[in-house]
């Protein structure tokens, strides 16, 4: 039997899926044990009990200074920024992307500009951003938006352009105006793609959030990671990284479910 034709059964599939994660944890445990045997105070690869301590301290004991439960207050702070940034990007991308995709004049005006802007490395422009937006939440949200929106705009514009010309013509023969066609034909078909688009941008959005929090903040997951990095407190950094990853994976999954629930036809189309 050719390799491409052999398929694992359900059990094997589950086992295979878990294997790399188990291996990773095992490799970590071995590396950590080796380093701790050499230097019991080693901070780079703390043992699993070190993690348990840190997580317990951060998640279940109030902070001496603020009285907050840090993990949760950091998570709340970061998620608010993340979703605000993604939300603004989404709306912007939807409006501008659709307009670029539908209106030839706007396309001529904006498409090259957006393409150029999407290549600008936003991290290099942070000082400007902070001056313009101030140092509060606005600038963090703006960094996420600047980092994420141009790609989303291009993606959605492309999607709007890809709608078969026949559909638009058909809508015109049904008496649709530009506005009506945007509202009833283009928009609903773009929305599922928008959700997918947001999912693809989750990784970059977290990246920009962490970068913004690293610079000026007093709470947030990225802030905490950069704060304790000075002390090489990997016992805090690792759990935070895992937690961020989990949040991202979960968001990704939930968004896809939402798409299927709200736009059932988009799932039918695929098959």
């Amino acid at each position, binding site marked *: 039997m050719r390799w491409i034709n052999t398929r694992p059964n359900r059990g094997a599939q589950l086992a295979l899926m878990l294997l790399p994660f188990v291996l990773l944890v095992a490799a970590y445990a071995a590396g950590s044990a080796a380093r701790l045997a050499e*230097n019991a*105070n080693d*901070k*780079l690869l703390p043992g699993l009990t070190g993690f348990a301590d840190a997580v317990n301290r951060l998640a279940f004991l109030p*902070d*001496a*200074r*603020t009285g907050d439960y840090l993990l949760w207050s950091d998570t709340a702070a970061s998620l608010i920024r993340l979703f605000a940034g993604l939300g603004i990007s989404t709306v912007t991308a939807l409006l501008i992307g659709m307009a670029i995709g539908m209106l030839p004049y706007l396309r001529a005006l904006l498409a090259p500009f957006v393409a150029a802007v999407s290549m600008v490395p936003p991290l290099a422009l*942070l*000082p400007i951003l*902070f*001056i313009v937006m*101030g*140092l509060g939440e606005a600038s963090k949200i703006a960094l996420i938006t600047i980092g994420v929106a141009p790609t989303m705009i291009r993606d959605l514009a492309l999607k709007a352009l890809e709608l078969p010309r026949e559909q638009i013509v058909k809508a015109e023969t049904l008496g649709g105006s530009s506005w009506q066609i945007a509202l009833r034909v283009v928009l609903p078909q773009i929305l599922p793609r928008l959700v997918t688009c947001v999912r693809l941008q989750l990784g970059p959005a977290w990246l920009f959030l962490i970068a913004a*929090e*690293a*610079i*000026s*903040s*007093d709470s947030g997951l990225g*802030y905490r990671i*950069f*704060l*304790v*990095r*000075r*002390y*090489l*407190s990997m016992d805090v950094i690792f759990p935070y990284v895992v937690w961020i990853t989990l949040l991202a994976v979960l968001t990704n999954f939930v968004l896809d479910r939402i798409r299927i629930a709200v736009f059932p036809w988009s799932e039918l189309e695929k098959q």
Partner: protein
Amino acid sequence: TSNAVAAPKTDFKVAWSIYVGWMPWGYASDNGIVKKWADKYGLTIEVTQFNDYVESMNQYTAGAFDAVTLTNMDGLSIPAAGGVDTTAVIVGDFSNGNDAVILKDKASLADVKGQNVNLVEFSVSHYLLARALESLKLSEKDVKVINTSDADMVSAYKTKDVSAVVTWNPLVATILEDPTAKKVFDSSQIPGEIIDLMVANTDVLKDNPNFGKALAGIWYETAALMTADTDEGKAAREAMGSASGTDLKGFEAQLAATKLFDKPADAVAFTASPSLPKTMDLVRNFLFEKGLLGSGAASADVIGIEMPDGKVLGDSGNVKLRFTDTYMKAAADGSL
């Protein structure tokens, strides 16, 4: 950003970043001390914490803040060289061991010769290295400097290719936990040269002297609290430790390597002493050599530095950095 505007101003913005000598600002803000002094003078003072020191200075230089915490060297090379006339309102402390040259598996400073040295380029660490090399009659040509971000200095030290670093606390303390790390030179060997300041925009200060007074009031109340050997003092130190990502013990260790001016009289004396002009002369020459006083600077004299007694180091027509003891003296006299 109303540098030149004399209209009455009551809202002020102060930026600070996480460093042992500046933690009191965060504590004061969290615990109502800032509000108390601001109210006293009918002002509002918004205190913003930065994780990233460089960005806090940039924001001040660009006009987004009225005051900022920085070192004497950065005060000269960043806002002053950037044309922002800046006055040191409070001389808070100087580094007395907080900055150090660390070698891996080598015990003597002389061993630094020929090595790659990781440090934040153009920072006080760079200056410390220059002073350390001078003490050996060496120059920067005898080593290779590699710019390394402070946030990653600790993990950088752990890598094989790094054998020498120059940095500051708490990074020094964390690196020294590694048995291979040997401190071979530190700022206690050049006492009083790395000074931590609270500076404010000179124009703002001139128009609103109450702002300077409020800052002085905040600083000395907090400093007195944190140095007190009471439960309250301990609680304050613990809170500052926690805010800087460490604990009480770690914070107290950092504090021990800092000459904190908790009494205004000491600060006044330090500012007025003849060693300050000497230090600033060293600093400006270092910066000039590195081309950090502006690309068109013809000599170290391009920027004037005014001392409390009115003497000016450098171009008196272009004074951009001023030391004053007005506010600290007011605190010492109890006339705030």
